[in-house]
Protein backbone atom coordinates (compact mmCIF):
# COMPACT_ATOMS: atom_id res chain seq x y z
CA UNK A 1 0.00 0.00 0.00
CA UNK A 2 1.31 3.38 -0.90
CA UNK A 3 1.59 5.34 2.32
CA UNK A 4 2.10 8.68 0.59
CA UNK A 5 -1.43 8.80 -0.89
CA UNK A 6 -2.80 12.26 -0.11
CA UNK A 7 -5.56 12.50 2.44
CA UNK A 8 -8.73 13.48 0.65
CA UNK A 9 -10.20 15.60 3.44
CA UNK A 10 -8.36 18.35 5.28
CA UNK A 11 -9.38 19.19 8.83
CA UNK A 12 -10.84 22.57 7.86
CA UNK A 13 -13.17 20.85 5.39
CA UNK A 14 -14.78 18.64 8.00
CA UNK A 15 -18.34 19.54 8.98
CA UNK A 16 -18.45 21.99 11.87
CA UNK A 17 -21.15 23.67 13.91
CA UNK A 18 -22.06 26.99 12.30
CA UNK A 19 -21.36 30.12 14.33
CA UNK A 20 -24.25 32.19 15.52
CA UNK A 21 -24.86 34.73 12.68
CA UNK A 22 -24.61 37.76 14.99
CA UNK A 23 -21.26 36.51 16.38
CA UNK A 24 -20.10 35.82 12.85
CA UNK A 25 -21.08 39.33 11.72
CA UNK A 26 -19.33 40.96 14.70
CA UNK A 27 -16.16 39.02 13.94
CA UNK A 28 -16.26 39.79 10.24
CA UNK A 29 -16.32 43.53 10.96
CA UNK A 30 -13.03 43.39 12.86
CA UNK A 31 -9.50 43.58 11.48
CA UNK A 32 -8.50 40.07 10.49
CA UNK A 33 -5.18 38.76 11.79
CA UNK A 34 -3.49 35.47 10.94
CA UNK A 35 -0.58 34.08 12.94
CA UNK A 36 2.01 31.43 12.18
CA UNK A 37 5.16 29.97 13.69
CA UNK A 38 7.73 28.82 11.14
CA UNK A 39 11.14 27.57 12.34
CA UNK A 40 11.05 28.93 15.88
CA UNK A 41 10.02 27.86 19.36
CA UNK A 42 6.58 29.54 19.60
CA UNK A 43 8.05 31.75 22.31
CA UNK A 44 6.96 34.88 20.42
CA UNK A 45 3.37 33.61 20.34
CA UNK A 46 3.61 33.12 24.10
CA UNK A 47 5.02 36.62 24.35
CA UNK A 48 1.94 37.79 22.41
CA UNK A 49 -0.11 36.39 25.31
CA UNK A 50 2.17 38.30 27.70
CA UNK A 51 0.25 41.43 26.72
CA UNK A 52 -2.08 40.27 29.48
CA UNK A 53 -5.15 42.47 29.83
CA UNK A 54 -4.14 44.78 26.96
CA UNK A 55 -4.90 41.77 24.77
CA UNK A 56 -8.58 42.35 25.55
CA UNK A 57 -8.34 45.91 24.29
CA UNK A 58 -6.74 44.65 21.11
CA UNK A 59 -9.36 41.92 20.63
CA UNK A 60 -12.10 44.54 20.55
CA UNK A 61 -10.75 45.56 17.16
CA UNK A 62 -9.06 42.39 15.99
CA UNK A 63 -10.23 38.92 15.04
CA UNK A 64 -7.58 36.21 15.10
CA UNK A 65 -8.21 33.73 12.29
CA UNK A 66 -5.53 31.14 11.64
CA UNK A 67 -3.24 30.70 14.64
CA UNK A 68 -2.04 28.12 17.10
CA UNK A 69 -4.23 29.82 19.72
CA UNK A 70 -7.48 29.36 17.78
CA UNK A 71 -6.37 26.04 16.30
CA UNK A 72 -7.55 27.20 12.87
CA UNK A 73 -5.17 25.64 10.35
CA UNK A 74 -5.99 27.60 7.20
CA UNK A 75 -6.35 31.31 6.46
CA UNK A 76 -10.13 31.33 5.92
CA UNK A 77 -10.32 34.67 4.10
CA UNK A 78 -8.07 37.60 3.26
CA UNK A 79 -6.39 39.06 6.37
CA UNK A 80 -5.13 42.56 7.03
CA UNK A 81 -2.21 41.49 9.20
CA UNK A 82 -0.01 38.40 9.23
CA UNK A 83 2.04 37.76 12.37
CA UNK A 84 5.03 35.59 11.44
CA UNK A 85 7.26 33.99 14.01
CA UNK A 86 10.28 31.85 13.11
CA UNK A 87 12.67 31.72 10.19
CA UNK A 88 12.87 29.59 7.07
CA UNK A 89 14.47 26.17 7.53
CA UNK A 90 12.52 23.86 5.18
CA UNK A 91 10.35 23.89 2.05
CA UNK A 92 7.13 23.76 4.07
CA UNK A 93 8.19 27.03 5.78
CA UNK A 94 8.65 28.62 2.35
CA UNK A 95 5.25 27.42 1.14
CA UNK A 96 3.50 28.63 4.30
CA UNK A 97 5.21 32.02 4.23
CA UNK A 98 4.31 32.50 0.56
CA UNK A 99 0.71 31.55 1.39
CA UNK A 100 0.73 34.23 4.11
CA UNK A 101 2.18 36.81 1.72
CA UNK A 102 -0.55 36.08 -0.80
CA UNK A 103 -3.35 36.27 1.75
CA UNK A 104 -2.25 39.10 4.07
CA UNK A 105 -1.95 42.82 3.34
CA UNK A 106 0.77 43.41 5.93
CA UNK A 107 3.31 40.89 7.20
CA UNK A 108 5.26 41.37 10.43
CA UNK A 109 8.48 39.50 11.24
CA UNK A 110 8.24 38.81 14.96
CA UNK A 111 11.30 37.75 16.91
CA UNK A 112 14.95 37.02 16.21
CA UNK A 113 14.25 33.89 14.12
CA UNK A 114 11.95 35.71 11.70
CA UNK A 115 14.15 38.82 11.65
CA UNK A 116 17.53 37.20 11.02
CA UNK A 117 17.29 33.43 11.54
CA UNK A 118 17.83 33.34 15.30
CA UNK A 119 18.90 30.23 17.17
CA UNK A 120 18.12 27.83 14.25
CA UNK A 121 20.48 29.94 12.11
CA UNK A 122 23.37 28.87 14.33
CA UNK A 123 23.58 25.86 12.01
CA UNK A 124 24.45 28.19 9.13
CA UNK A 125 28.11 28.04 10.14
CA UNK A 126 28.13 24.23 10.02
CA UNK A 127 27.74 22.25 6.75
CA UNK A 128 24.31 20.58 6.53
CA UNK A 129 25.90 17.15 6.16
CA UNK A 130 27.69 17.59 9.48
CA UNK A 131 24.42 18.71 11.13
CA UNK A 132 22.65 15.57 9.92
CA UNK A 133 25.51 13.35 10.98
CA UNK A 134 25.52 14.82 14.48
CA UNK A 135 21.73 14.73 14.82
CA UNK A 136 20.95 11.30 13.36
CA UNK A 137 24.05 9.17 12.78
CA UNK A 138 26.56 9.90 15.55
CA UNK A 139 23.87 10.92 18.02
CA UNK A 140 24.78 9.78 21.54
CA UNK A 141 21.14 9.21 22.53
CA UNK A 142 20.43 6.71 19.71
CA UNK A 143 18.41 3.66 20.69
CA UNK A 144 20.92 0.80 21.11
CA UNK A 145 20.66 -1.86 18.44
CA UNK A 146 18.88 0.37 15.91
CA UNK A 147 20.41 1.31 12.61
CA UNK A 148 21.23 5.02 12.41
CA UNK A 149 19.14 6.66 9.72
CA UNK A 150 18.58 10.11 8.29
CA UNK A 151 14.78 10.44 7.96
CA UNK A 152 13.64 10.92 4.41
CA UNK A 153 10.06 10.67 3.25
CA UNK A 154 7.87 12.67 0.86
CA UNK A 155 5.67 13.65 3.82
CA UNK A 156 8.58 15.16 5.73
CA UNK A 157 9.46 18.71 4.65
CA UNK A 158 12.84 18.97 2.98
CA UNK A 159 15.31 20.98 5.02
CA UNK A 160 17.00 24.00 3.41
CA UNK A 161 20.80 24.12 3.28
CA UNK A 162 20.82 27.34 5.33
CA UNK A 163 18.29 29.04 7.60
CA UNK A 164 16.95 32.30 6.16
CA UNK A 165 15.19 35.31 7.66
CA UNK A 166 11.63 35.75 6.34
CA UNK A 167 12.44 38.93 4.40
CA UNK A 168 14.94 37.02 2.25
CA UNK A 169 12.05 34.85 1.00
CA UNK A 170 9.11 37.27 0.67
CA UNK A 171 8.68 40.98 1.36
CA UNK A 172 8.09 41.66 5.05
CA UNK A 173 6.59 45.00 6.05
CA UNK A 174 7.54 45.41 9.72
CA UNK A 175 10.04 43.89 12.12
CA UNK A 176 9.92 43.30 15.86
CA UNK A 177 13.31 42.02 17.08
CA UNK A 178 13.81 40.20 20.38
CA UNK A 179 14.13 36.65 21.65
CA UNK A 180 11.29 36.85 22.37
CA UNK A 181 10.11 40.46 21.95
CA UNK A 182 8.41 41.89 24.99
CA UNK A 183 4.60 41.68 25.04
CA UNK A 184 4.63 45.49 25.17
CA UNK A 185 6.65 45.67 21.94
CA UNK A 186 4.24 43.37 20.11
CA UNK A 187 1.29 45.36 21.44
CA UNK A 188 2.84 48.68 20.38
CA UNK A 189 3.28 47.56 16.77
CA UNK A 190 -0.15 45.90 16.50
CA UNK A 191 -1.85 48.83 18.22
CA UNK A 192 -0.19 51.29 15.81
CA UNK A 193 -1.34 49.22 12.83
CA UNK A 194 -4.88 48.72 14.11
CA UNK A 195 -5.30 52.44 14.80
CA UNK A 196 -3.73 53.52 11.53
CA UNK A 197 -0.75 55.23 13.13
CA UNK A 198 2.76 55.13 11.73
CA UNK A 199 4.45 52.05 13.20
CA UNK A 200 7.30 52.75 15.58
CA UNK A 201 9.15 50.73 18.16
CA UNK A 202 10.65 53.06 20.77
CA UNK A 203 14.10 52.09 22.00
CA UNK A 204 12.75 51.62 25.52
CA UNK A 205 11.04 48.39 24.41
CA UNK A 206 13.27 47.38 21.49
CA UNK A 207 15.36 44.35 22.50
CA UNK A 208 17.56 41.95 20.55
CA UNK A 209 17.78 39.30 23.28
Amino acid sequence: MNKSVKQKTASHELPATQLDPSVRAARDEKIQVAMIGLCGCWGCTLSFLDMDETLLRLLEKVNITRSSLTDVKRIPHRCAIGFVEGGIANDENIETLEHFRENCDILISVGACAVWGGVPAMRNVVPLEECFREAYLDVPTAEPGTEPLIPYHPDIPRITTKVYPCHEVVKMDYFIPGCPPDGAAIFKVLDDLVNGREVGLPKSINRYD
Partner: protein
Amino acid sequence: MSVRITIDGKEYKAGDGATLVDVAADNGVYIPTLCYKRGKPCLGTCRTCSVRVNGNVMAACTVPVADGMEVEVNEPEVANMRKMLVELLFSEGNHNCPSCEKSGRCELQAVGYELEMMVSRFPYRFPVRPREHAAKHIWLERDRCIFCQRCVQFIRDRETGQKIFSIDHRGSHASIEIDVKLADRMPPEQVREAARLCPVGCILEKGVGYDQPIGKRKFEIKSIRERALERERQ
Protein backbone atom coordinates in the same frame (compact mmCIF):
# COMPACT_ATOMS: atom_id res chain seq x y z
CA MET B 1 41.49 79.85 22.36
CA SER B 2 37.84 79.27 21.83
CA VAL B 3 36.12 78.80 18.48
CA ARG B 4 32.52 78.90 17.29
CA ILE B 5 30.96 76.00 15.44
CA THR B 6 27.40 75.18 14.47
CA ILE B 7 25.83 71.77 14.96
CA ASP B 8 22.52 71.29 13.12
CA GLY B 9 22.22 75.06 12.79
CA LYS B 10 22.79 75.80 16.48
CA GLU B 11 25.89 77.70 17.53
CA TYR B 12 28.29 76.36 20.17
CA LYS B 13 31.57 77.50 21.68
CA ALA B 14 34.42 75.03 21.89
CA GLY B 15 38.13 74.85 22.65
CA ASP B 16 40.19 75.11 19.45
CA GLY B 17 41.35 71.67 18.34
CA ALA B 18 39.01 69.76 20.67
CA THR B 19 37.60 66.56 19.17
CA LEU B 20 34.25 67.10 17.46
CA VAL B 21 32.56 64.06 19.00
CA ASP B 22 33.49 65.28 22.52
CA VAL B 23 32.37 68.84 21.81
CA ALA B 24 29.02 67.52 20.60
CA ALA B 25 28.59 65.31 23.69
CA ASP B 26 29.49 68.20 26.03
CA ASN B 27 26.71 70.20 24.42
CA GLY B 28 24.13 67.44 24.66
CA VAL B 29 24.36 66.21 21.06
CA TYR B 30 24.81 62.44 20.99
CA ILE B 31 26.90 60.97 18.20
CA PRO B 32 27.14 57.16 18.39
CA THR B 33 30.65 55.69 18.58
CA LEU B 34 32.03 52.15 18.71
CA CYS B 35 35.81 52.34 18.35
CA TYR B 36 36.22 55.73 20.01
CA LYS B 37 36.76 55.82 23.76
CA ARG B 38 36.80 59.24 25.36
CA GLY B 39 40.20 60.05 26.83
CA LYS B 40 42.01 57.62 24.56
CA PRO B 41 43.60 58.41 21.17
CA CYS B 42 41.22 58.26 18.22
CA LEU B 43 41.24 55.10 16.09
CA GLY B 44 38.82 56.13 13.34
CA THR B 45 38.14 52.53 12.34
CA CYS B 46 34.40 51.98 12.75
CA ARG B 47 33.07 55.24 11.17
CA THR B 48 29.87 54.93 13.23
CA CYS B 49 30.29 58.57 14.30
CA SER B 50 30.13 59.83 10.69
CA VAL B 51 28.68 63.33 10.42
CA ARG B 52 28.76 65.99 7.74
CA VAL B 53 31.40 68.67 8.29
CA ASN B 54 31.22 71.66 5.91
CA GLY B 55 29.41 69.39 3.45
CA ASN B 56 31.78 66.41 3.63
CA VAL B 57 31.12 63.18 5.51
CA MET B 58 33.76 62.58 8.17
CA ALA B 59 34.15 60.47 11.30
CA ALA B 60 33.51 62.91 14.17
CA CYS B 61 36.15 61.24 16.37
CA THR B 62 38.85 62.20 13.86
CA VAL B 63 37.88 65.85 13.45
CA PRO B 64 39.46 68.64 15.55
CA VAL B 65 37.02 71.55 15.69
CA ALA B 66 37.93 74.80 13.94
CA ASP B 67 36.29 78.21 13.83
CA GLY B 68 33.22 78.48 11.59
CA MET B 69 32.81 74.73 11.18
CA GLU B 70 29.31 73.74 10.11
CA VAL B 71 28.34 70.29 11.32
CA GLU B 72 25.26 68.24 10.46
CA VAL B 73 24.55 65.37 12.85
CA ASN B 74 20.84 64.64 12.76
CA GLU B 75 20.22 65.55 9.15
CA PRO B 76 18.26 62.50 7.81
CA GLU B 77 20.68 61.44 5.08
CA VAL B 78 23.77 61.36 7.28
CA ALA B 79 21.81 59.80 10.19
CA ASN B 80 20.68 57.06 7.82
CA MET B 81 24.31 56.54 6.76
CA ARG B 82 25.32 55.91 10.38
CA LYS B 83 22.46 53.47 10.81
CA MET B 84 23.52 51.71 7.63
CA LEU B 85 27.07 51.29 8.98
CA VAL B 86 25.74 49.67 12.15
CA GLU B 87 23.43 47.41 10.12
CA LEU B 88 26.47 46.38 8.04
CA LEU B 89 28.30 45.35 11.21
CA PHE B 90 25.30 43.28 12.31
CA SER B 91 25.11 41.43 8.99
CA GLU B 92 28.86 41.03 8.61
CA GLY B 93 29.41 39.01 11.81
CA ASN B 94 27.31 36.59 13.82
CA HIS B 95 25.63 38.86 16.34
CA ASN B 96 23.35 36.42 18.06
CA CYS B 97 22.33 38.52 21.08
CA PRO B 98 20.21 35.80 22.75
CA SER B 99 23.24 33.52 23.06
CA CYS B 100 25.92 36.14 23.75
CA GLU B 101 27.51 36.71 27.17
CA LYS B 102 27.98 40.38 26.34
CA SER B 103 24.29 41.09 25.73
CA GLY B 104 23.15 44.06 27.79
CA ARG B 105 26.75 45.26 28.08
CA CYS B 106 27.48 45.26 24.37
CA GLU B 107 28.16 48.66 22.80
CA LEU B 108 27.17 47.47 19.31
CA GLN B 109 23.81 46.29 20.66
CA ALA B 110 23.35 49.52 22.63
CA VAL B 111 24.10 51.64 19.56
CA GLY B 112 21.66 49.48 17.56
CA TYR B 113 18.96 50.40 20.08
CA GLU B 114 19.89 54.09 19.96
CA LEU B 115 19.60 54.10 16.17
CA GLU B 116 16.28 52.22 16.43
CA MET B 117 17.53 49.39 14.26
CA MET B 118 15.00 46.55 13.90
CA VAL B 119 16.67 44.56 11.14
CA SER B 120 19.69 44.86 8.88
CA ARG B 121 18.92 45.95 5.34
CA PHE B 122 21.87 43.82 4.17
CA PRO B 123 21.85 40.02 3.82
CA TYR B 124 23.21 38.29 6.91
CA ARG B 125 26.49 36.64 5.99
CA PHE B 126 26.98 34.05 8.78
CA PRO B 127 30.78 34.01 8.47
CA VAL B 128 32.68 30.97 9.73
CA ARG B 129 35.54 32.16 11.92
CA PRO B 130 37.03 29.63 14.35
CA ARG B 131 37.17 30.53 18.05
CA GLU B 132 40.54 31.00 19.73
CA HIS B 133 40.82 29.13 23.03
CA ALA B 134 44.59 28.78 23.41
CA ALA B 135 45.20 31.43 26.10
CA LYS B 136 44.66 30.46 29.74
CA HIS B 137 42.32 33.23 30.89
CA ILE B 138 40.91 34.75 27.75
CA TRP B 139 39.18 33.51 24.62
CA LEU B 140 38.07 35.06 21.37
CA GLU B 141 34.68 34.63 19.71
CA ARG B 142 36.05 35.74 16.37
CA ASP B 143 32.76 35.95 14.47
CA ARG B 144 31.70 38.85 16.72
CA CYS B 145 34.79 41.01 16.08
CA ILE B 146 34.07 44.33 14.37
CA PHE B 147 37.78 45.17 13.89
CA CYS B 148 37.65 48.36 15.93
CA GLN B 149 41.26 47.79 17.06
CA ARG B 150 40.67 49.02 20.61
CA CYS B 151 42.35 45.90 22.01
CA VAL B 152 45.16 46.12 19.48
CA GLN B 153 46.11 49.65 20.49
CA PHE B 154 45.17 49.93 24.15
CA ILE B 155 45.93 46.51 25.66
CA ARG B 156 49.66 45.98 25.82
CA ASP B 157 52.08 43.84 27.77
CA ARG B 158 52.76 45.73 30.99
CA GLU B 159 56.50 44.99 30.97
CA THR B 160 57.50 45.38 27.35
CA GLY B 161 54.64 47.49 25.94
CA GLN B 162 54.25 44.93 23.16
CA LYS B 163 50.86 44.47 21.54
CA ILE B 164 48.96 41.41 22.75
CA PHE B 165 46.20 41.51 20.12
CA SER B 166 46.64 41.97 16.39
CA ILE B 167 44.68 41.70 13.19
CA ASP B 168 45.87 39.22 10.59
CA HIS B 169 45.02 39.38 6.89
CA ARG B 170 42.71 41.92 5.26
CA GLY B 171 39.16 42.45 4.05
CA SER B 172 36.86 39.47 4.46
CA HIS B 173 39.85 37.33 5.51
CA ALA B 174 40.73 39.64 8.42
CA SER B 175 41.01 37.83 11.73
CA ILE B 176 41.67 38.96 15.29
CA GLU B 177 44.68 37.19 16.79
CA ILE B 178 46.12 36.94 20.28
CA ASP B 179 49.73 36.41 21.36
CA VAL B 180 49.16 33.49 23.74
CA LYS B 181 52.50 33.85 25.55
CA LEU B 182 51.85 37.52 26.34
CA ALA B 183 48.18 36.87 27.09
CA ASP B 184 49.09 34.29 29.72
CA ARG B 185 51.17 36.98 31.47
CA MET B 186 48.20 39.34 31.74
CA PRO B 187 47.17 39.98 35.35
CA PRO B 188 43.46 39.25 36.08
CA GLU B 189 42.50 42.95 36.12
CA GLN B 190 44.01 43.43 32.67
CA VAL B 191 42.07 40.44 31.36
CA ARG B 192 38.91 42.07 32.68
CA GLU B 193 39.93 45.42 31.21
CA ALA B 194 40.39 43.80 27.78
CA ALA B 195 36.97 42.11 27.97
CA ARG B 196 35.34 45.37 29.05
CA LEU B 197 37.11 47.39 26.39
CA CYS B 198 35.83 45.13 23.61
CA PRO B 199 32.68 46.86 22.30
CA VAL B 200 31.20 43.48 21.31
CA GLY B 201 31.36 39.98 22.80
CA CYS B 202 34.58 38.96 21.05
CA ILE B 203 37.13 39.16 23.88
CA LEU B 204 35.80 37.17 26.83
CA GLU B 205 37.20 36.19 30.19
CA LYS B 206 37.20 32.46 30.84
CA GLY B 207 35.28 31.17 33.84
CA VAL B 208 32.69 33.97 34.03
CA GLY B 209 29.58 34.81 32.04
CA TYR B 210 25.92 35.67 32.38
CA ASP B 211 26.79 36.99 35.84
CA GLN B 212 24.43 39.96 35.71
CA PRO B 213 20.67 39.37 35.62
CA ILE B 214 18.59 40.72 32.72
CA GLY B 215 17.36 44.19 33.58
CA LYS B 216 20.43 45.00 35.68
CA ARG B 217 23.05 44.93 32.95
CA LYS B 218 25.21 47.93 32.08
CA PHE B 219 23.17 49.55 29.33
CA GLU B 220 19.87 48.61 30.92
CA ILE B 221 20.76 50.63 34.01
CA LYS B 222 21.88 53.58 31.92
CA SER B 223 21.76 53.82 28.13
CA ILE B 224 24.86 54.36 26.02
CA ARG B 225 23.51 57.80 25.06
CA GLU B 226 23.23 58.93 28.68
CA ARG B 227 26.69 57.58 29.41
CA ALA B 228 28.19 59.38 26.41
CA LEU B 229 26.55 62.66 27.35
CA GLU B 230 27.72 62.36 30.95
CA ARG B 231 31.37 62.34 29.79
CA GLU B 232 31.87 58.89 31.17
CA ARG B 233 35.49 57.80 31.16
CA GLN B 234 36.51 54.30 32.06
